[in-house]
């Protein structure tokens, strides 16, 4: 079927429901690309750990005695018990399996096991925890489960450069220096791609985001920040800050210039990160697909350390994007059940202000086919 020139096809409906396709996405996308796994500051001291669900794996992040952050498959090398069961915690000395007490150092090396001295042929590195590649950027620990990861510079940093048009621009927000003012976790009953597609377009903004379009009037025209290169959507003239009611926010972050003031920038880092940049804070989304129809979204609101340390009220600031999130996720959840409808078997269509989403579809398709 030929589409009118105004329209491009979306992915077929089964791409949002089929367990086989979801499995391919888990292995070839989420277990093969760089994934933002944790805020580095959430692992402040040696022995503090977090477990994160990435693709079909549980990944353990832990800060070592040398203060370095490391990531491992959360699997005991002996008989496969899950090493750390809690989502977050702290160990005093070592990481120890609850089953047979195989004991690993914070560097992953096998330190002790019952009768290990009688098995001198067991190499303590070879039978240590299996490591996962880790990079820190923007204050987050990004991990890649692939044996040979794609270039971090090209894929992750490159996504920010492509959108902002300048590799240095994102550094002006000094995100590794910011502190988490609020974190909200959303359990969204929708396929992860519906959430990405939603974030990439603003055709829906005037309909479901009244508060956001009050602050960013150009969003009512339907062109998302992702439509452009280097474009920040301008605040309405009467708006004082990026807040639920347009009231005053906080001081502009130190390294930003007038060019970035009173503007909103957005970056999508495939496959699971959205970065929203405004003058006084950053909203950072991380997505973790759990099932074809379920995605956990962790959203951090990052402010200057001074704002967080002083205990300033971030409610008005958080409320704007929290409401946007709820509006967006409700829309995604509204779409999910129809993905298996026979009328959506061939998918839907993208209007011109959404045509750039086709590039995301090509990105997904080329990886799973």
């Amino acid at each position, binding site marked *: 079927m030929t589409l009118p020139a105004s329209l491009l096809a979306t992915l077929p409906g089964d791409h949002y429901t089929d367990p086989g396709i979801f499995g391919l996405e888990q292995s070839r996308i989420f277990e093969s690309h760089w994934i933002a796994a944790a805020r580095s500051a959430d692992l402040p001291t040696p022995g503090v750990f977090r477990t994160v669900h990435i693709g079909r794996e549980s990944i353990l992040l832990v800060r070592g005695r040398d203060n370095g952050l490391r990531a491992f498959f959360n699997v005991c090398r002996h008989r496969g018990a899950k090493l750390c069961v809690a989502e977050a915690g702290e160990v005093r*000395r*070592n990481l*120890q399996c609850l089953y047979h*007490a195989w*004991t690993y150092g914070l560097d992953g090396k096998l*330190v*002790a*096991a*019952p*009768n*290990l*001295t*009688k098995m001198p042929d067991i190499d303590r590195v070879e039978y240590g925890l299996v490591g996962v590649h880790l990079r820190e950027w923007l204050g987050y620990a990004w991990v890649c489960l692939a044996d040979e990861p794609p270039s971090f510079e090209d894929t992750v940093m490159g996504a920010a450069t492509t959108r902002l048009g300048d590799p240095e621009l994102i550094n002006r927000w000094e995100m590794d220096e910011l502190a988490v003012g609020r974190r909200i976790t959303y359990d969204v009953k929708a396929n992860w791609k519906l959430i990405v597609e939603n974030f990439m377009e603003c055709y829906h903004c005037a309909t479901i985001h009244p508060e956001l379009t009050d602050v960013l009037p150009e969003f009512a025209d339907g062109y998302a920040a992702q439509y452009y290169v280097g474009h920040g959507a301008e605040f309405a003239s009467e708006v004082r800050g990026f807040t639920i009611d347009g009231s005053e926010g906080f001081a502009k972050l130190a390294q930003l210039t007038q060019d970035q003031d009173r503007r909103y920038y957005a970056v999508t880092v495939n496959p699971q990160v959205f970065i929203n940049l405004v003058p006084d804070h950053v909203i950072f989304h991380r997505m973790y697909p759990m099932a074809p129809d379920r995605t956990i979204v962790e959203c951090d609101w990052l402010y200057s350390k001074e704002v967080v340390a002083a205990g300033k009220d971030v409610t008005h600031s958080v409320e704007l994007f929290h409401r946007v999130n709820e509006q967006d996720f409700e829309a995604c959840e509204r779409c999910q059940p129809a993905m298996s409808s026979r009328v959506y078997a061939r998918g839907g269509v993208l209007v011109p202000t959404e045509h750039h989403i086709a590039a995301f579809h090509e990105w997904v398709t080329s990886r799973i086919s």
Partner: protein
Amino acid sequence: MIPVCAVDDLPVGEAVRVEAEVPIAVFNADGVLYAIDDTCTHQDASLADGWLEGCVVECPLHASCFDLRTGQPTGPPAKKPVRTHEVEVREGVVYVRPSMSAVA
């Protein structure tokens, strides 16, 4: 006497396991050398792989603690002591003299 290692190879906070008739662990606790049986009396694990804090070593497996000076358990689950052994440094080399007492 059994030679263990060069004294320079046993820095403060470190331990080394010696394969004697019964394995022995030699510790450098803040500059003082101590030797005890290497094997925890609770379950077979090397105390040389444990955590040294002051004059106490904590077993890496189940956190039993032993006083390096006496060999006495100072923290559960171990109940029986380990033997202590004489340590000597001669011309930059650490030696241990295995204790003749029966294994505890």
